[in-house]
C-alpha cells in the first residue's frame, strides 16, 4: 500500500528538512516541470488525474485552476489554506509539521501552472510547530533557489509568505480568508466574481487545501494513471483519514481513498474502547451528517459518503459512543457554530444561537415537545441556499441527522425532563 504523502515523515514527529526531502526525490517534480512542461500542461495533468480538493467540498482542483485568466499582466496569487479549524479535524497538521517542503513544492508547481506571482500559507494561530517548520522551510527553499527570482534558472519567479491567523473558524472559508489576508474581518464575499477571477486585492487567486497541494509534485512525477491506481474507487489518490472519540487507537492514517468505515474503525482505530458501543460518527468533521452502524460498509470517498446521506468532508471522523449523550454532543457542535458565525446574514446570526438554546434547554430538563419541530424548522431554514455562506448549512448537517437517527434520545429528554445520561456534562 503506497503512502506518498506521509511515507517519509519521520516517526518521531520531526519534520523532513530540505536535504532529507531532496534525498527522497524532493523538488525533482519542480525541476521537471520548469524544464519540460508548459504551465498549461501542469494544469491539464492535474485535471486528468481528477484530483478533488481535500478541504471539505471536494471540488476538482484542475478545473478550479482552469478558471484563472491566463495572459493577463499583473499579480496573481496562490494560497494554501492551512486554517484547519473544523472541530474533529487534525490531518493538515500532520503534513504541515512533518513534510513542509512537500507543501511548498506543490505550491510552487500550482503557482507555475496559474502563473502566480505571490504565494501565501494561511496558517492558524494554534499550530506553533507548523509555523516554525514552515518558516524554516520557506527560508531554506529561498536559499536553495526554489523560491524567489528566476527559480532554478528559469523565467519563473515566485515570492512566498507565511501568514499566521488570530483565530476564527470563518478564516477557513476561502473568500473570508481573502478578507482576513487583506487585514479585514473574516466575512465571506459574494460570488461571483469568483476568487479565480477577482480574489486577493481584486487579483486572480487560487485557494487550495494543504492536503490537496501536497499532491501536486507526486502527480507531476508519476502521472495521472498512477494517481488513480492508488485508490479503491473512482476518486483517485490516497486520503488522510482520522478517528477521534472513545476508540482504542485514535489517530490519522494515509489510506487508499474509498476504504470502508468499518475497516477504518476496526482495523486502524482499533475498535471501540472496552465498555463503549459505537452509535454513530460524523464522517468528516463537525459539519457533516451522522452515519450509524447501518453505514459501516460505506466506502469513504466523495460519492460513497454522499450516497449514504452525508459528506466525506475532511475525512476525519468523530465517534459518538453509547455513553455520550447525542443531544449534548449536538449542543456542543451548535455552540461552536453559533460562536463562530460571522454575523453577516440573519438566518445564521439569529438561528444558530436559537438552536443552541433549544438544545441547552433539552439537556437541562426544560425542553418541550414543540422544540423538536422548531429544531427541524431551523435545519430547513438554515440549509443550503438560505444563508450567505456554507457555515450555517454545515451546522445543520449534524443536527438534522441526529434528529433522524437519535430521535428517541431527544424525546426521552423531553419526557423525563432531564438528560438521561450518567456522564451528563456541559
Amino acid at each position, binding site marked *: 500500500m503506497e503512502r506518498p504523502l506521509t511515507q517519509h515523515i519521520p516517526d518521531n514527529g520531526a519534520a523532513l528538512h530540505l536535504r532529507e526531502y531532496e534525498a527522497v526525490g524532493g523538488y525533482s517534480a519542480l525541476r521537471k516541470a520548469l524544464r519540460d512542461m508548459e504551465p498549461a500542461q501542469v494544469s491539464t495533468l492535474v485535471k486528468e488525474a481528477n484530483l478533488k480538493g481535500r478541504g471539505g467540498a471536494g471540488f476538482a482542483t484542475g478545473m478550479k485552476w482552469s478558471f484563472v485568466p491566463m495572459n493577463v499582466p499583473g499579480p496573481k496569487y496562490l494560497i494554501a489554506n492551512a486554517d484547519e*479549524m473544523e472541530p474533529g479535524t487534525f490531518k493538515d497538521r500532520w503534513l504541515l509539521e512533518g513534510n513542509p517542503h512537500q507543501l511548498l513544492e506543490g505550491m510552487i508547481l500550482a503557482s507555475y501552472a496559474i502563473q502566480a506571482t505571490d504565494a501565501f500559507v494561511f496558517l492558524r494561530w494554534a*499550530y506553533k510547530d507548523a509555523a516554525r517548520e514552515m518558516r524554516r522551510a520557506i527560508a531554506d527553499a529561498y536559499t536553495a533557489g526554489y523560491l524567489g527570482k528566476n527559480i532554478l534558472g528559469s523565467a519563473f519567479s515566485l515570492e512566498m509568505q507565511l501568514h499566521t491567523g488570530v483565530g476564527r473558524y470563518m478564516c477557513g472559508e476561502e473568500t473570508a480568508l481573502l478578507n482576513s489576508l487583506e487585514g479585514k474581518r473574516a466575512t465571506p464575499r459574494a460570488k461571483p466574481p469568483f476568487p479565480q477571477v477577482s480574489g486577493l486585492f481584486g487579483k486572480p487567486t487560487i485557494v487550495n487545501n494543504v492536503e490537496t497541494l501536497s499532491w501536486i509534485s507526486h502527480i507531476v512525477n508519476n502521472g495521472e494513471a498512477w494517481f488513480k491506481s492508488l485508490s479503491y474507487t473512482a476518486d483517485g489518490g490516497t486520503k488522510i483519514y482520522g478517528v477521534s472519540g472513545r476508540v482504542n487507537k485514535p489517530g490519522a492514517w494515509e489510506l487508499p481513498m474509498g476504504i470502508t468505515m468499518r475497516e477504518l474503525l476496526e482495523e486502524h482505530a482499533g475498535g471501540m474502547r472496552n465498555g463503549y458501543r459505537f452509535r454513530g460518527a460524523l464522517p468528516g468533521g463537525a459539519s457533516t451528517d451522522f452515519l450509524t452502524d447501518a453505514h459501516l460498509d460505506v466506502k469513504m470517498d466523495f460519492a460513497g459518503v454522499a450516497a449514504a446521506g452525508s459528506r466525506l468532508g475532511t475525512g476525519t471522523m468523530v465517534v459518538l459512543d453509547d455513553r455520550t449523550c447525542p443531544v449534548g454532543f449536538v449542543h456542543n457542535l451548535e455552540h461552536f457554530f453559533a460562536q463562530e458565525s460571522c454575523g453577516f446574514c440573519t438566518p445564521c446570526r439569529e438561528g444558530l444561537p436559537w438552536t443552541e438554546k433549544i438544545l441547552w434547554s433539552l439537556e437541562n430538563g426544560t425542553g418541550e415537545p414543540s422544540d423538536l419541530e422548531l429544531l427541524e424548522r431551523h435545519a430547513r431554514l438554515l440549509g443550503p441556499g438560505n444563508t450567505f455562506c456554507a457555515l450555517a448549512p454545515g451546522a445543520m448537517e449534524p443536527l438534522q441527522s441526529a434528529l433522524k437517527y437519535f430521535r428517541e434520545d431527544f424525546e426521552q429528554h423531553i419526557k423525563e425532563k432531564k438528560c438521561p445520561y450518567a456522564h451528563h456534562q456541559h
Partner: protein
Amino acid sequence: MLSAIEIEKISHELRHVPVKKAACIEALKIVQQERRWVSDESVADIAAMLEMSAAEVDSVATFYNLIFRKPVGRHIILLCDSISCYVMGYTALRQRLHEILLIGYGQTTADERFTLLPNACLGTCDHAPALMIDEDLYRDLQPEDLEQILEKYH
C-alpha cells in the same frame, strides 16, 4: 503612544501591502505582542498610523478571538471545548482549573498569572482532551495532571 519598536515593526509590515489598511491585523498582533493586550489608546494609535478610523480598527480587533481588548494575565490558558474534547471529558479539566485558579472563563487570577479562555478545536483531537498555555500544547490530559503543569508558569 506606539513605542519606537512597534512603529518600526508596523512600518516593516507596511512595505509588504498594497494599501495601509491591509496591515491592520498585523499591527494589532504587533501591539499585543509588546503589551499583552490592545487598549483603546492603542486602537486609536494604530488607526492614525494606518489612516483608518478607530472604529474600523476596533471592528477588526473585536472580530478575532485571539486579539485581546481587555487586560490579560502573563499566561493565557486556552482550553479546547470542541467536540472530540467534549467526548473525552474536557469539562472535568474545566472544573479542575476553576478549583485551582478560582476563576471562570474570561477571568484573570488576582496575581495576574493566568487568564482562562475556552478555545475551539486545537487540531489535536486524537489526543483529546487538550489545552494550550501560551505556545505550549498539552494533550491526553487528566484533571490530576493540571496542577503540575500550571507550576511551570510564573
